[in-house]
């Protein structure tokens, strides 16, 4: 046998030098590309800062006021929370068309329980959060166990949840005044406080906290690594020892929970509980827009929650800026369309150049 492989023994004396090539054109640009490469959420951050700058220059102190700048945060709080939920699903290579509908339904559940069934507000909120988690769990189960495409599952779920929402609420809005009088806790996330002339509310704080917590969980816990692995290649993840089913279930349930939180944020922001809130119909597209502008790949496994948060802010800055500049609604709509394509094109280009 040995004569067949003696030629292989030569390798013991092989040269162990590794290929190294001169790093051409390093310096500032090169180092900048390295940074972009290592922290992909830098790209949306740059776009965000650039758009703030541009609108600031165009609109002056009206835009650069604490009022206007914190207004952006307040205006994106719902979409921001939904985008966090959406990011989780998209990281697993899915997509969730039901996020907005779940948020609205959960806000209705919280309101209905309190006003029609006399449940104490805090308990209603808790039950609303549980409802959201449950709906997410059903979607997760359909995706993970029945192997149905997430697009379909959540498309169906979207319609089901919206219809249940209308049926349950009989389309009646619970008025802000009534909530304020009888169940203030439902509006808890609307509580405002001022810091140096800027107004924040607890909903904004919740959104930022959520982004931080999820960013930590995705980056620094085993669960986070598993979410990325499942999105990257579920089969490979399963073979290398990830409990794919548990990961899917946890992601979809957590997403449902966060959507329910968004429902609570909605009560805080609008004061009232309104079953016909548009978030139910267009919240999904808004959240997806934020996520993709934030550089998260629709193919799964790549991107960060912080990027999605910046994505939501970019849209917020554009919408507020265009509105303040007096652009008419259709032009605003058109320009947001251009922004979506443009932002992703810039992102793609920067990544290519810095590859």
């Amino acid at each position, binding site marked *: 046998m040995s004569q067949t492989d003696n030629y292989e023994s030569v390798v013991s004396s092989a040269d162990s030098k590794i290929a190294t090539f001169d790093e051409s054109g390093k310096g500032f640009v090169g180092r900048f590309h390295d940074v972009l490469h290592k922290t992909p959420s830098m790209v949306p951050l740059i776009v965000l800062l650039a758009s703030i700058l541009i609108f600031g220059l165009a609109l002056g102190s*009206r835009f650069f*006021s604490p*009022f*206007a700048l914190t*207004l952006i945060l*307040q*205006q994106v709080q*719902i979409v921001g929370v939904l985008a966090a939920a959406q990011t989780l699903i998209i990281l697993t290579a899915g997509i969730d068309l039901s996020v907005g509908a779940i948020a609205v339904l959960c806000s209705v559940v919280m309101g209905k329980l309190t006003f029609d069934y006399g449940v104490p507000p805090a308990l209603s909120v808790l039950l609303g959060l549980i409802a959201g988690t449950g709906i997410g769990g059903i979607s997760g189960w359909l995706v993970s166990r029945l192997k149905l495409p997430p697009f379909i599952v959540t498309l169906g779920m979207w319609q089901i949840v919206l*219809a249940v929402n*209308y049926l349950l609420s*009989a*389309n*009646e*809005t619970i*008025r*802000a*005044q009534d909530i304020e009088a009888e169940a203030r806790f439902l509006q808890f996330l609307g509580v405002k406080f001022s810091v140096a002339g800027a107004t924040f509310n607890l909903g904004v704080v919740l959104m930022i906290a959520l982004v931080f917590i999820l960013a930590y969980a995705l980056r620094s816990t085993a669960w986070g690594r598993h979410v990325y692995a499942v999105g990257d290649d579920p089969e490979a993840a399963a073979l290398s020892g990830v409990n794919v089913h548990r990961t899917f279930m946890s992601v979809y349930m957590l997403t449902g929970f966060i959507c329910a939180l968004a429902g609570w944020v909605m009560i805080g*922001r*609008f*004061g*009232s509980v*309104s*079953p*016909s*809130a*548009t*978030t139910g*119909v*267009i919240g999904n597209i808004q959240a997806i827009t934020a996520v993709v502008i934030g550089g998260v790949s629709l193919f799964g496994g790549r991107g960060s929650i912080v990027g999605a948060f910046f994505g939501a802010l970019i849209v917020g800055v554009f*919408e*507020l800026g265009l*509105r*303040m500049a*007096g652009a*008419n*609604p*259709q032009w605003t*709509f058109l320009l947001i369309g251009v922004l979506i394509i443009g932002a992703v094109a810039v992102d793609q280009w920067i990544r290519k150049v810095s590859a």
Partner: protein
Amino acid sequence: SDIGACLITKTDTNPFFVKMREGATAKAEELGIALNSYAGKIDGDNETQVAAIETCIANGAKGILITASDPSGIVPSLQQARDAGLLVIALDTPLDPSDAADMTFATDNFLAGELIGKWAAASLGDAAADAKIAMLDLAVSQPTVGVLRDQGFLKGFGIELGDPNKWGDEDDSRVVGHDVTAGNEEGGRKAMENLLAQDPFINVVYTINEPAAAGAYEALKAIGRENDVLIVSVDGGCPGVQNVAEGVIGATSQQYPMRMASLGIEAIAAWAKDGIKPSATDGKDFFDTGVSLVTDQPASGVDSITVAEGNDLCWG
């Protein structure tokens, strides 16, 4: 011009609001007011309206004209605007509670429905007792305008209402069914077909607005029944009045958005100059910009104007 004003409509995909904006823009130019217009993305879009109000405050506007998508949901945001010293005028749709606005310039939507209901019943005479009615509504989310007109129509026709805050809970067997149209031709045709499939002998059709009525007419025409069905509608847009003239629609309740808008702009101008707020129509808690039934077949007991008159007043 340093007086700023905002117009916030439900959407700007509906000609009604397009015309309202045109009226407001014209008046604003005349009075030297800088007008910014905003609109929700779809009917019922409260979120975008809230964001628009906040923008108006940030922009330092003097007043807001709003057709609220969610009449009670929008109240806290408008309160914020009033606290910041802005005049708030509700157009077209009263707020809930209505004193959340400094004044309301509106059509009475329930009344608009009631007029066409009464007219339809009167036109049918004795046949009204065994009419077969199709109700073509706006959307599954049952926005208030749709509910008010629907329930007004039924009341005017002489049908007992269930809960007046929603449609679809009536027991009267004359109502064949409800379907939703999104307020356009496409939805009108499909909804009409669906209800015809349930009962081909429908002879009265209530429609949320005139585009839906035009769609319903196409569906009836497709099976050759366009001449034995009574279609009634609301809005009084110029194409709608034209359709009344041509017999597509039997009668329509006309409202006056240009008037609402120009009155609104004048009110803001007055507020900015002299700090005066407008006052309501006598006996009502809002300024009624009026509604008129437009038809060339007047029915006894129901006031109406002719198509020619309607044409002079129509808005788009």
